[in-house]
């Protein structure tokens, strides 16, 4: 069964989606079979590709939207929520 699930994350002050946070974001996404995308403004990236995520240029304080599609989409979004909680 294919489901989709979505999550909005506001990046905390001082935590852009660069370098180490981008790495931990992608590592979290790589644990799932679902197709996971992350968008920032007009740009959308494959959440499992570190270079695509870095190219989003999502700065601290900005909002990103994570969308998962696939059998483990709900769990994937939960994992991305945990990732976001870990940034606080």
């Amino acid at each position, binding site marked *: 069964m294919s489901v989709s699930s979505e999550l909005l994350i506001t990046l905390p002050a001082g935590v852009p989606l660069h370098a*180490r946070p981008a*790495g931990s974001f992608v*590592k979290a996404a*790589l644990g799932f079979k679902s197709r996971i995308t992350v968008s920032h403004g007009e740009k959308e990236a494959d959440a499992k590709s*570190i270079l695509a995520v870095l*190219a989003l240029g999502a700065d601290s304080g900005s909002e990103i939207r994570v969308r998962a599609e696939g059998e483990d989409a709900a769990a994937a979004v939960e994992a991305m929520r945990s990732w976001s909680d870990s940034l606080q």
Partner: protein
Amino acid sequence: MLPEVVGIVLVSHSVELARGLAQLAGQVAGGEARVVPAGGLGDLLGTSSEVVEAAIAEADQGDGVVILADLGSSILTIRGILDHQPNGHIRLADAPLVEGAVAAAVTAAAGLTLEEVVVAAEETRGVSKF
């Protein structure tokens, strides 16, 4: 104790280039990553089979090693080593060095397989920077 991951070896003619890139890729990928620089020929620009072989041994935890290289003769140095390692456990990725190293390190640190790490590195050829 850290989990076993695919090791990454970065071969460059320059000690500083290999070392700096290992630092960058290691920082993006986090603590699980095992990224080992293999740059230089003694104090000179160049590549050394001994240095690369030692880096492979250091990076190898049993799940395989992916090597990325800068240019020209570094590829020849690596090929010379891989000719004696026919089991496919050590792989040379055909990828841009900086992008490939970061992608390989993150993918390896996430616990993915040798083949998946090679693909992630090689896929960076077509990715735009912005």
